């Protein structure tokens, strides 16, 4: 629901960080406590970037699980699906959130320079022929 707002903020951050260079992938850490739907975020990213310099870039979302430390029994709980914020061992609500509240742009992958050069300059520079553009394989998808 607030994914569109988040994408606008992400756009501002990425546009500053790229310093004019083309971007292929934007890597995010999104804690599950942030209530962000990754598919919705990815869709909103296409809306926000449409027609601009970041059009065609994609989001790579590291969806960080919620991990709690219990203030009573001291045990650690990794919360599965339901966002029940209580200790998995003793049921106490006196918990500290270890992870799951992350919401940040960790890094960006610039578009492959060989690709960018070929796209922007049809007269390829002399020298060794550039290696074929590596086609992204499933193994490279995060």
């Amino acid at each position, binding site marked *: 629901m607030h994914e569109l707002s988040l994408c606008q903020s992400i756009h501002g951050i990425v546009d500053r960080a790229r310093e004019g260079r083309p971007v292929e992938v934007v890597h995010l850490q999104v804690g599950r406590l*942030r*209530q962000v739907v990754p598919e919705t975020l990815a869709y909103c990213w296409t809306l926000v970037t449409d027609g601009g310099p970041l059009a065609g870039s994609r989001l790579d979302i590291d969806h960080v699980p919620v991990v709690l430390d219990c203030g009573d029994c001291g045990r650690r709980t990794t919360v599965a699906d339901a966002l029940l914020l209580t200790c998995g061992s003793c049921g106490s609500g006196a918990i500290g959130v270890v992870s799951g509240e992350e919401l940040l*742009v960790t*890094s960006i992958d610039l578009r492959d320079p060989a690709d960018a050069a070929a796209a922007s300059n049809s007269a390829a520079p002399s020298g060794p022929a550039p*290696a074929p553009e590596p086609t992204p394989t499933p193994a490279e998808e995060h």
Partner: protein
Amino acid sequence: MGRFHRHDDGTEHEHDHEHDGHEHAHEGHDHGDHSAYATGPERVVVLERIFDENDRAAADNRAALDAAGVRCVNLMSSPGAGKTTLLVHTLRHLRDTGVRAGVVEGDIETSLDADRLADLGAQISLLNTGDGFGGECHLDAPMVARALTRLDLDALDVLLVENVGNLVCPAEFDVGAHDRVMVYAITEGEEKPLKYPVMFRSVDVVLVNKMDLLPHLDFDLDLFRRNVAAVNPGARLVEVSARTGDGLEEWHAWLTDPARPAARVG
């Protein structure tokens, strides 16, 4: 950090990639072998919080409110839980007791809520959040900053921000208030604290509203209290009826308590 360069003479190279003080998340996936390529995709470390811009604006709002001596409460709920009806009572009470009140009204598209709050002695700044681009589900700090410019803060003691009716998005955005208060209608059932723990965790006070309907419902008040306590042991519950006015004294006393300590931000 390595950086690709293309010089004017057409030569290209990439500086050494140094892992200086940051970590890549390489575990669990394979980047593939790029060693055959002189110039592979380059990764630029950013590590910037997505809420930084909002949080800076929220801090500015709070500083402006502090400078004017205004206590600001972010009022959140589901649609129809009774925020506006509650505000009618509260603004009347504040007017009658000499407390200068203001309202930032996060209505969508219309001024229906603001119309109900007119003529109660409060300054009202209306924010129509339906701009069609991400603002329709919550108020954020830059929106509230715009609303503050339309208020005479020096003539206020208390500012109530009526957020958009929604149990998800408003919990995520610090608008620059000093306290977060939730209006919860008992018609919403007992289980919502477990389904929306982020919202319930974020608030200082839960006004348990529509208590006048309790005889007609199967609502288990004790179970609801336990569910709130499970996700937010520090939350204060106040049973009220915005329709009859019952129970509002405790809420009004809390709202206007000059000794009320600064709670978490919101």
